[in-house]
């Protein structure tokens, strides 16, 4: 009697229902608006999968072929949709297979909630079957992680997980749930989304004095230069950014993850920063007088040698993460805050200006780069195929409307340099971690994040062989992604370094490929392989128009190098054209 009464009367007066921890997790995910889960089952997460059996209508679970594929798919989803990616994995090997993706999401600020099963709480620390210390393994590569051992914690912890993953500077969160908590029945009183944690301040408070100082500096500048990164996209501040750029009239360049925040063909978009970025933006970094860095973190691939980086310039740094300020480059004026708020505040205080002569300098460098590099790369008249011409032809067909997912290596640099983007959230690549094997699974997620858009995964012959098992996912779940393998029969980027810096000593970069068309066929995916210039446009067109997934292999020249290049240890102004 007593027990019964307890269950019925709830101190908060909220109606409760008795559910298992597993059901509570799924209900919480639904309350957070989760549409798709990328996952893989196993012993320690079986109760959740059992509950999922009854939720097939409400939650779309995609069975991947490897947990790394699951988490990269979650990342691709998050990047194109702006929502939190959700991933399931079992304990032990399932959980450890997530680590690469967590590290990738951490460094690229991608919002994820990963749920891993764990052995029963009473077995923790006993070296039980498939027990690993997932919390400690993942601590350095998660924004937050937490182990649930009691089902009553579930609603609060899941709501915190989503809040932390998406707010402030986004990042991956991992929740490890012991099997007993998944099974345990408890009174579920509904779901309350989290919007405040007292120890966590996702957005620093904006200080107007710095906005004023930044505006004054911009108004005085003769040769100002905007560097923008993914922060503009993560902050959903593309429009605010565009207004700022246009009123200020300042030439603007992007980091690889910032691509697409304003269109490639915007007159003030002067190109890509960094090791394989454009000539002008790199050289003129050391010629400008004021840098306005927005939502970017001065990665070493962007700055080159730090002690020779923009020493002449005053630096204004807008970032939501206070720990980024002064981390690598000394800031003159720090502007902490969400750029969706700081940018309009700054725009209001700056004068409308243009810098025709300064902009002209960028154009002159662009001309030199076209003559020395781009012309030959995009429009070669003879010889073997180049990666650049394939991307160039792709641009002609997609007109900048496609989502381009890239793997890591030469093809990534070529694709990011030459692909045109009209829209934000269109460039999905592994920037900070440089994870080979990212593209194929990320493309799967990217398609779920933007089902109406064309998704093209540009992948090297090396990286494709790292996660090609996800062709199985594409087959089983009928996912429409276009796979473009740029096959140079080399681990090209490493080969390029060995050629340039190790005297052509090609040490284990010669990589063989299987018959990709036959492989695709085995997975019931249409495929084609080409090596003639005349076939590029028509084959790309066939691929893009095909209803369903399609694999196109293009045999490109073996020993091409990506230029321009800022060699490691050199200043950005020492960028090489050949």
């Amino acid at each position, binding site marked *: 009697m007593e027990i019964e009464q307890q269950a019925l009367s709830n101190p908060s007066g909220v109606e409760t229902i008795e559910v298992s921890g597993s059901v509570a997790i799924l209900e919480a995910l639904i309350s957070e608006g989760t549409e798709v889960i990328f996952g893989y089952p196993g012993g320690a997460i079986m109760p959740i999968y059992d509950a999922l059996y009854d939720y097939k209508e409400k939650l779309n679970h995609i069975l991947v072929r490897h947990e790394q594929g699951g988490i990269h798919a979650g990342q691709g989803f998050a990047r194109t949709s702006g929502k939190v990616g959700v991933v399931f994995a079992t304990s032990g090997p399932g959980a450890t297979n997530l680590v690469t993706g967590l590290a990738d999401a951490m460094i690229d600020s991608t919002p994820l909630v990963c749920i891993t099963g764990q052995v029963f709480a009473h077995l923790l620390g006993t070296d039980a079957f498939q027990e690993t210390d997932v*919390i*400690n393994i993942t*601590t*350095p590569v998660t*924004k*937050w*992680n*937490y*182990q649930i051992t009691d089902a009553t914690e579930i609603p609060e912890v899941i709501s915190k997980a989503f809040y*932390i993953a998406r707010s402030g500077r986004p990042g991956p969160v991992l929740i490890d749930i012991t099997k007993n908590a998944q099974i345990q029945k408890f009174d579920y009183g509904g779901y309350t989304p989290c*919007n*405040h*944690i*007292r*120890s*966590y*301040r996702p957005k*620093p*408070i904006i*200080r107007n004095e710095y906005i004023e*100082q930044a505006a*004054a*500096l911009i108004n*005085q500048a003769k040769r100002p230069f905007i560097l923008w990164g993914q922060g503009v996209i993560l902050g959903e501040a593309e429009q605010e950014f565009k207004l700022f750029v246009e009123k200020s009239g300042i030439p603007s360049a992007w980091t690889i993850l910032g691509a697409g925040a304003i269109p490639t063909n915007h007159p003030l978009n002067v190109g890509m920063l960094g090791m394989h970025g454009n000539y002008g933006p790199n050289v003129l970094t050391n010629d400008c007088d004021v840098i306005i860095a927005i939502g970017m973190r001065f990665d070493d691939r962007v700055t080159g040698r730090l002690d020779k980086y923009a020493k002449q310039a*005053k630096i204004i740094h807008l970032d939501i*993460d*206070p*720990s980024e300020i*002064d*981390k690598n480059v000394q800031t*003159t*004026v*720090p502007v*902490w805050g969400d750029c969706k708020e700081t940018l309009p505040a700054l725009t209001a205080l700056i004068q409308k200006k243009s810098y025709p002569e300064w902009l002209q300098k960028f154009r002159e460098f662009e001309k030199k780069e076209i003559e020395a590099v781009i012309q030959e790369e995009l429009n070669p008249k003879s010889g073997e195929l180049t990666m650049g011409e394939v991307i160039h032809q792709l641009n002609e067909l997609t007109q900048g409307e496609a989502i381009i997912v890239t793997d890591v290596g030469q093809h990534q640099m070529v694709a990011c340099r030459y692909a045109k983007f009209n829209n934000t959230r269109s460039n999905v690549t592994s920037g900070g971690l440089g994870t080979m094997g990212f593209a194929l699974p990320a493309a799967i997620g990217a398609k779920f994040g933007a089902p109406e858009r064309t998704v093209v995964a540009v992948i090297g012959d090396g990286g494709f062989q790292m996660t090609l098992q996800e062709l199985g996912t594409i087959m089983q779940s009928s996912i429409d992604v276009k796979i473009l393998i740029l096959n140079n029969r080399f681990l090209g980027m490493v080969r390029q370094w060995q050629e340039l810096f190790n005297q052509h000593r090609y040490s284990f970069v010669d990589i063989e490929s299987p018959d990709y068309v036959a492989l695709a066929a085995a997975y019931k995916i249409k495929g084609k392989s080409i090596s003639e210039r005349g076939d590029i446009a028509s084959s790309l067109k066939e691929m893009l128009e095909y209803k369903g997934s399609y694999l196109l292999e293009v045999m490109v020249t073996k020993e091409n190098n990506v230029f321009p290049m800022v060699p490691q240890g050199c200043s950005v102004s020492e960028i090489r054209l050949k």
Partner: protein
Amino acid sequence: MGNQNKTEKPDGKQEFTITVYTENQIGLLNRIAIIFTRRKINIHSLNTSPSEIESIHRFNIVVHETEEVVRKLSRQIEKQVEVLKVYYNTNEDIIWQEMALYKVPTDIIAEKASVERLLRENGARAVVIRKDYTVFETTGHREETDALIKILQPFGLIEFVRSARVAIIKKSDGFNRKLREFEKAEPGDEVIENEYLNKGQRIFTM
């Protein structure tokens, strides 16, 4: 408190005490520790304890580093979700103590009056006196607790142990008021009062 400042060395490194106010959460110690180990920075002393507020924990971490490094470490620590606030201070800014225990053979202590005098001069206190050994305790700065080791060594010091540093920031008026701000959904300027956000004259002015 006298001569407590280790002067800054030519490499710019000096002793800093980092004070961290946190939620009481399992795993947070590891999260904080790896911020140091990832950068190959040695933690000289680490103490966790309750704070003046129930449920809020307080870490004291001592490192020997340049201010720039300590500032960056502090920002990385403060970025952790369950960390409320981080302060870092030089020895001039804090009042600090470490406690040490010394186990020495009782017969020698009893025989040699000079030992007794030395102990008294060093502010040591007997915690346990047994037939076979005596345990003394001192509280003070590193130099003080170190000095007594040297003194006791010739008399057959059996065991020595020193605690982590605990420190109080001279200027601090506690955490109560700040915590109330943190608990608000829209905290006031109070929470951004922050030593490393105010760079004083280094900030560009027109």
